[in-house]
């Protein structure tokens, strides 16, 4: 797998008028596909000027995914990617909701403490948790 044969990317409109920027935002009607998402948002900074190669992003994502499986999960899925000024943000989700808050909290703690190293590249990694409140 190389950077050349897959990619996931967030795009924004290129040609908005001032009037279009004021249009109201609406949600789509809820569907059976709607789900409770336990997300871990990974921020990688310190990217070279030409961006972070997708191999590096994969390496980081897979390291987290493997660590999540080792904690009893089923691995993480990439559900979003944003590219900024020398930054990359990956949104990762687990499809096994049982125990997900605990697993993701552990992952975040291990990453913050430096116990979990995601990539051999000299990037700064930090993450945030998006865990829906329990009803």
């Amino acid at each position, binding site marked *: *797998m*190389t950077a*050349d*044969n*897959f*990619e*996931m*990317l*967030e*795009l*924004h*409109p*290129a*040609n*908005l*008028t001032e009037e*279009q920027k004021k*249009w*109201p*935002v*609406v*949600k*789509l*009607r809820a*569907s059976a*596909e709607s789900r409770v998402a336990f997300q871990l948002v990974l921020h990688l900074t310190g990217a070279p000027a030409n961006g972070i190669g997708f191999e590096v992003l*994969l390496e980081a*994502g*897979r390291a987290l*995914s493997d660590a999540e*499986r080792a904690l009893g999960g089923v*691995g*993480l*899925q*990439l*559900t*979003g*990617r944003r590219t900024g000024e020398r930054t990359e943000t990956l949104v*990762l*989700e687990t499809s096994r909701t049982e125990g997900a808050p605990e697993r993701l909290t552990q992952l975040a703690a291990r990453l913050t403490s430096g116990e979990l190293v995601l990539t051999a590249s000299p990037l700064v990694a930090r993450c945030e948790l998006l865990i829906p409140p329990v009803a």
Partner: protein
Amino acid sequence: MSFGETSPPVVRHLLVCRRISYDLNAPGAAYTLHALITQLQLEAGAEFPVVVPELWAFLQVFGEVGEYEIWIELAAVDGEGEVLGEATSYGPLVLRVPDGVWVVNRAYRLANARLLRFGLHEVRVWCGADLLAREEFVV
């Protein structure tokens, strides 16, 4: 428009859906498309024009090795495919077709999609003046 002298890539699939996920542990079958859209249903009471926070477009192409500049366009259209009002453009994007790869997959999150009205819409993929693919849905 490609950067070289090659023909534009061929789009095998263009699909519009509500969400795409990529399985980090299954690179050979990584993409899952959730809720393919044929009719986009907005929350009750929505009055046009509106912004939908996200739509996703899945693109699978093959073609000659090279780099291609592509644009993705979202537009309301009439029954003949003529654009009604102003289209929203996303791009330019560089699509690389590397050597030795059968197909190239791309998942694009189209943020803040502008919808002008009820009715037929299209997502279109352009490479210069070449329309590579179009996918219809109804709002």
